[in-house]
């Protein structure tokens, strides 16, 4: 696990460096709704943009504003200061208003040769599913054209199968964490998943299998309070460590880099890869940017909290993140109605100065719930 921790803490990790050295192309994306299978099938490495807790935003603040979420500002900062110069392209999605602004500024200031916008509907119905399937087909065409590769149905279906294998293993890891003796800490799982979305999918699937085998008899909890962590896109392994350092272990989550990437996909088969991808990404997405699915999100969070026998749920959002900021209120009400204690936290992304305040609040929460 230490090696994954080490690699997950790097923007351009050793695997990316080797990939580039061998002549491979890398395309950055930020949102969990990006159908990365198309890039995989094209032989291009999809790399999920992250900021890894970088709190500096001086370059980004000249473009985005202080009223935009600090996670997006931190990502833009790294884009502008050259940390992401190894990327051969960017894929934008309309994940949220801040992320759209981040991509538009990035592309305006430092244009990428390959820039494509995947347009994801906010409400799922027959018409929007059709629209999204068409959009995925357009994405496929754009990737094939720009990188001058053929993306055959066979390659794409194989790539979809690999993603399914990853999700199956990730679900297994979630089950192992939810057990009496959680097999991984929340910080370990986050580091592993972060590393996973920056390396080739086949390799990640193999790593997950190894981790599962290695952690079959392991207790990362050791009697600590069991928490679930939900909320904004966060890749701050240090934040999760800080939560766990005060006497807790995160045994479940509904985070963008965590369960959200795992939850979808009922495994149903279709011969049309675009339709299959539309269904995988659009159905069962646990993201509050979907506007007619709160009941589904609420039920999934409540049942995950129950199944993992958590002592409490922390609902976190980055300052100015509206979709989570509002959703967390509804979730808190729903959890409390079910008798599950919940703590709502607003924080600045990557702000080291904020960590003391957050720890105090978490400690107080743990005391409140009797741990």
């Amino acid at each position, binding site marked *: 696990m230490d090696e994954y921790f080490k690699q997950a803490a790097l923007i351009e990790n050793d695997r990316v460096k080797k990939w580039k050295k061998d002549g491979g192309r890398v395309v950055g994306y930020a949102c969990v709704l990006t159908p990365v299978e198309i890039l995989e099938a094209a032989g291009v490495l999809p790399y999920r943009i992250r900021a890894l807790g970088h709190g500096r935003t001086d370059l980004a603040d*000249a*473009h*985005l*504003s202080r*009223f*935009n*979420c600090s996670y*997006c500002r931190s990502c833009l900062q790294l884009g502008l200061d050259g940390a992401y110069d190894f990327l051969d392209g960017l894929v934008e999605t*309309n994940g*949220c*208003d*801040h992320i*759209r*602004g*981040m991509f*538009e*500024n990035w592309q*305006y200031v430092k244009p990428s040769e390959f820039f494509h*916008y995947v*347009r994801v*509907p*906010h*409400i799922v*119905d027959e*018409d*929007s599913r059709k*629209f999204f399937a*068409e*959009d995925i087909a357009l994405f496929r065409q754009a990737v094939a054209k720009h990188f001058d590769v053929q993306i055959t149905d066979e390659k794409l279906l194989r790539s979809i199968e690999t993603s399914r294998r990853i999700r199956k293993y990730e679900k297994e890891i979630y089950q192992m964490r939810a057990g009496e003796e959680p097999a991984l800490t929340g910080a370990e799982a986050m580091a592993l998943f972060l590393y996973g979305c920056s390396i080739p999918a086949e390799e990640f699937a193999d790593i997950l299998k190894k981790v599962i085998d290695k952690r079959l008899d392991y207790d990362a909890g050791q009697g600590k309070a069991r928490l679930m962590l939900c909320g904004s896109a966060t890749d701050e392994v240090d934040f999760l460590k800080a939560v766990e350092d005060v006497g807790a272990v995160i045994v479940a989550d509904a985070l963008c880099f965590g369960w959200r990437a795992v939850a979808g996909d009922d495994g149903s088969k279709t011969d049309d890869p675009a339709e299959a991808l539309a269904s995988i990404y659009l159905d069962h997405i646990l993201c*509050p*940017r979907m*506007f*007619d699915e*709160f009941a589904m999100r609420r039920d999934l969070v409540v049942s995950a909290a129950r199944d993992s026998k958590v002592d409490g749920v922390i609902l976190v*959002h980055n*300052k*100015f993140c*509206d*979709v989570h*900021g*509002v*959703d*967390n*209120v*509804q979730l*808190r009400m729903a959890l409390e109605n079910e008798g599950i204690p919940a703590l*709502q936290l*607003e924080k600045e992304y990557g702000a080291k100065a904020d960590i003391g305040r957050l720890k105090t609040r978490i400690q107080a929460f743990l005391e409140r719930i009797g741990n």
Partner: protein
Amino acid sequence: MVSQRTQTGLFDRTANLLELISKMPENISDEETQGVLRVLPPDVRQALSAFFIPSMRATSIVFLKMLGKCFIGAREAQKQGKKVILAPFNFPPELLHAFDSAFPLTSEVLSTVGVIALQGQGERYFNTALGFGLPDHICSANSIALGSILGGEDFRPDALISSAPGGCDVNSKIHEFVAHYLNIPQFFLQKPPDDSQRGRDCYVRYTKRMIRNLEEFLGEKLSEEKLRRVMEKANRCTELNNELWEMQKAKPSPLPNLYSLMLYGTRFTMWGTDAAIENLESMVATAKRRMKDPAFSKRPEKARTLWAYTSYYFDVLGLFNWMDDKGYAHLGDGLDLYFPQAVDCASMDTMIEGWARSAWNMPMTRQVGGESMSGAWTEDIVFAAGDLNADCVIFCGHHSCKQTWSVVSILGKELKKRLGLPILVLQGDSWLKNMTPIGAIQQQIEEFVTHALSRKKRSIKATSRIRDKRRKARGEAKS
């Protein structure tokens, strides 16, 4: 039930005030006006005195009466068992006016009228929303009215329409929250971020789906005949709106600064009704009268300012009228940029497609709901600034408006590049005075406008010097 409520909610208080104003004659004298204002609480007095300046008092009263029809109409409609449907400002209300069993209300109009006209300016309702644990960066534009509704002692809508998905996250989220909390149905009209024909066709399909859902909820089929009647009136509103746009090109602009607010106040509420036509006709008549008035045409217009998104509403006297007094024309803001077009009333299909086009063109949907937030917004601002001959652009910097804040740097650069126009980026809350006081806003506007004008003069002088030099070099006489 209306009668059982304490009348402490924003809607009830505003409706009561508008009911009172509806009784005022349009030809009320200066003396009588002063008498009426004197008995009102300070915040209400200040707001109404902005509307009751002699040069536009009659038109203001027609406008306020139209708003009264909207508020009182909603109250009466609910009493009669009709469904009052709350929608955000980017939903063209004429569709709901075409149903016999529905009545539209607009969240942001409720907030704005409450902030402008009520003692206390609606802050307590925003605080109620925050009391639920909602973050302080939610948008006051809708959360003031919605906070009042959430508080329980106010009007309760029968359903919500959410037309902001794709245009604004926070708007969509807060409406979703209210629908869940009140356990009332919510209908959606999402905007695909695709400005090609594919996106437009998809939007028409979404529109038709939403209408089917509304019909099912209301138990009423949308009547072609009724829709045509409403759309024909909407077309008349379009003509009058476009007439005002054309008149605004004149220098000095014959449109009082408050017209910006009154125009979209009409667009977002009673568009497609006789009340809206009467109001717009009155606005046109006043503007024409000012245009013909020799004293008015001699009035100095020092600067022409275009506001890029919203204006400030917590002190309309301190912004719109203050700018008028300073000789700064307010040429409208982003909310005026809905570019109405006539709807073809030949058939049900053409009318629904026409309505969908109007909805696509509503402010926010059209700009930041575009395929590119910065691209679509920039195109509109550049067009409006050029067409209306603006000297400069002002961005209000409403703190909750994350989409515009995220791309205003691009807008600024493009304005400079394409038109050579400077932009002032303010920071504040358009609906709440406690973030930036109006005095600070006035000071920044004044400094900016003065600077922008002196730069423009220098630039004109420099250009003319260069032209003269070139002419001289070619041996031509100075013109």
